């Protein structure tokens, strides 16, 4: 921790955690006050007995008030420097460290997303959501006492990522909450909430004033942020010295993670372009006219699931992974793990062709064909020298790399018709050939990233098609 001694670090964390827990206590207190004053208090647990004829019950107001008091006590403990008391136990941190390998992390987030999707009716309940919200903050607070965690999270570069996690959780909850309410209303034959209040307002002054106020507030916030957490300056740039780890700006960390699994040409050019083109193509691919102007999930399950998978799983999750969990030498580190530049990870990656020819068939890799090996070809020299690269490339593509070529071609050529005949039959009928093929290929490209990641982690597979001679790797 930048040469801080243990006690200095304790003081630093204590000075941060005291106000932090007080803020959390105030947050819960305000929530309780709001519920009480707006008459939304609900009896959760009926207590036996009564006072003055009124039965006693533990209401949600009481519960949140109690939670606020717990946070206040934590503030007192942490602020007084007893950080050992308000930190996660060592065994739990170890378990989390071990559990956050890339496989557990990505499979876990996927399963989490699926669970959240199917049990959304439960998770969007305000009480449940508020509990999760509190637990998230508590987890952050308890983890802060770990020097390695603090080092990563409190780095000015990474603060926006922490904010992003919380903001994203809130807004995802908000949208899902509205969607669940709307879906229930629609199931009961009622119009969605947004239709109840579709009074038109004026751009001037209603919208413009709102925007102006937002602009001023956001500018003030940015100024405050820039003063409070100055952007870190690093040493002078040098073409021969790359910082370790060398990280892209946070919003590109998803792309940087993608580059770990793909050739730069693929992950740096083709897939990002496809993301942009695919997003632009959505209005032309979407044939579902429902869900226009109001939140809903039931009416647009496919669009919702694909978008949330692409956004939460493939973009946000990878950003969080790249920011918080990738350390020196781009190795994977648990959240409480020390960033050891000499951590050894066995990552001997093997190409598919090497798997098949060398390990499977126990023979050496077939080489490329060349006209110089075939003097019997009756072609003039200038023509063979011109055609030689092509012959070499295609002989590699369909010779040495044949297994990968077949797999990739099968994936992109055979799968769309199979999808059209099976799971996406209705889609195919409603979309027509071209629209369906575009959508299917975009989907397959999107799915190729997690597939490639899993192949890398499970089989140490480097490339399906590896023709470095021509900078062609997939």
């Amino acid at each position, binding site marked *: 921790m930048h040469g801080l001694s243990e006690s200095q670090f304790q003081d630093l964390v204590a000075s941060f955690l005291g106000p932090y827990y007080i803020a959390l206590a105030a947050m819960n207190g305000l929530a309780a006050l709001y519920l009480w004053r707006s008459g939304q208090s609900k009896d959760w647990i009926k207590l036996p007995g009564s006072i003055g004829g009124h039965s006693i019950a533990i209401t949600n107001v009481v519960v949140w008030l109690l939670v606020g008091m717990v946070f206040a006590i934590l503030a007192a403990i942490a602020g007084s420097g007893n950080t050992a008391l308000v930190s996660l136990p060592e065994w739990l941190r170890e378990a989390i460290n071990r559990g956050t390998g890339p496989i557990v992390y990505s499979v876990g987030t996927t399963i989490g997303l699926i669970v959240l999707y199917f049990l959304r009716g439960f998770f969007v309940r305000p009480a449940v959501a508020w509990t999760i919200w509190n637990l998230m903050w508590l987890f952050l607070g308890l983890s802060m006492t770990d020097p390695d965690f603090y080092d990563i999270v409190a780095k000015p570069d990474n603060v926006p990522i922490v904010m992003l996690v919380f903001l994203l959780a809130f807004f995802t909850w908000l949208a899902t909450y509205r969607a669940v309410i709307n879906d229930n209303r629609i199931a009961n034959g009622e119009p969605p909430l947004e239709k109840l209040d579709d009074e038109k307002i004026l751009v001037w002054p209603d919208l413009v004033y709102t925007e102006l106020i937002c602009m001023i507030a956001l500018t003030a916030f940015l100024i405050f942020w820039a003063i409070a957490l100055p952007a870190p300056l690093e040493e002078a740039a040098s073409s021969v010295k790359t910082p370790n780890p060398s990280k892209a700006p946070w919003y590109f960390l998803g792309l940087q993670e993608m580059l770990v699994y*793909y050739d730069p040409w693929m992950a740096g050019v083709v897939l990002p372009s496809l993301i942009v083109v695919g997003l632009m193509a959505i209005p032309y691919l979407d044939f579902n006219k429902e869900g226009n102007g109001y939140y809903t999930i039931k009416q647009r399950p496919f669009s919702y699931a694909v978008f949330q998978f692409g956004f939460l799983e493939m973009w946000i999750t990878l950003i969080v992974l790249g920011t918080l969990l990738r350390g020196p030498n*781009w190795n994977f580190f648990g959240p409480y793990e020390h960033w050891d530049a000499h951590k050894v990870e066995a990552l001997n*990656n093997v190409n598919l062709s090497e798997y098949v020819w060398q390990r499977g068939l126990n023979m050496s890799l077939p080489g490329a064909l060349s006209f110089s090996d075939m003097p019997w070809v009756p072609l003039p020299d200038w023509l063979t020298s011109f055609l030689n690269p092509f012959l070499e490339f295609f002989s590699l593509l369909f010779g040495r790399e044949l297994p990968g070529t077949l797999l990739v071609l099968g994936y992109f050529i055979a799968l769309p018709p199979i999808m059209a005949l099976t799971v996406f039959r209705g889609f195919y009928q409603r979309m027509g050939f071209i629209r369906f093929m575009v959508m299917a290929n975009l989907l397959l490209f999107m799915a190729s990233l997690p597939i490639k990641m899993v192949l890398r982690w499970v089989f140490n597979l480097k490339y399906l098609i*590896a023709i470095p001679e021509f900078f062609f790797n997939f």
Partner: protein
Amino acid sequence: MADKKKMSVAEMIAAARKADGGQSSVSASDSSTSQVDDESASAQASEASAAETPASKPAPAKGADGGRLSVAEMLAAARGQGAPGAAKPAEKKPAAKPAAKPAAKPATAEKPKAASPPSEPRDTASILAAAKKSSKAGPTSKAEAAAKEKASPTAKAKPQIVVPPMPEKPDYAKAKPAGAAKKSAEPVDETRRGFLSLGFWSLGAVGALWTLATVKFMFPNVRREPPSKFKVGFPDAFPAGQVQEKYKAQFGVWVVNAEYNGQQEIFALKSVCTHLGCTPNWLEAEQKFKCPCHGSGFYKDGINFEGPAPRPLERYAIRVADDGQIEIDKSRTFQEEMGQWEEPSSFIPV
């Protein structure tokens, strides 16, 4: 002739008004400004007057005037057939043009006053006039108007307006001799054009200078980059199994003494990752090159084995110079996957 032929709108309207009023005094021959040559106009006039009494002449008859009918005439004829008592326009446009030349000159003085129908097949004024007229529906052609004027004796009776001679122009109003006029009129033009062309030329010159300066900027007087060929010392300075990092900061090169394909050799590895171009680090403890950007790893001999790097690190050309020192040439690289590491200038056998 061209400016004579065209009449101003005001003139056209005046002509139309005159013809309309039925008291226009200008005969066809008088109104030589009409650019209709006299004989053809009069011929038409007589023809028209002859045609005045019977119903309108059939259109093809006009062809007798020699030549095909213009579209305007056809239209007029078609209209005239519908309108009772309408005379047919018969004017031949091509004929009128050359005729107008001699006629126009003497008429110049009178022109403003001499209201005359324009020689065009039909003009706005006549269309407007025709709309007002009760006698004839539809627009009138110039020749028609002229014929009408001729045909009506009252029109002829109108006294000619006599224009008193203009007083002599004062000196200052007199036209200057051609040379003087040129001098007075052109310099204005000349200065403006001259200024513009001067401006554009100087703009172009400055642009060219800038371009040249930019090109010059690309070739600075002093080049700070190290020479592509440099010496790193005698081969004994590189014991077996060592990765010499000394030259990385300045030259971007590792000098390695390692075994490759069963042969101990000294070679110069380029310190650029073959994945995306970051600079890897040599990790002595792990005996590997490791890229901090995406985790690519390379063995000591430069062969890639982990991470996304698709091919081994590249080698620079290396040789033992005449003085016995090792000389590295960065202008040539050797790629393993192309089989170039077999080339003798890519390594020094130990």
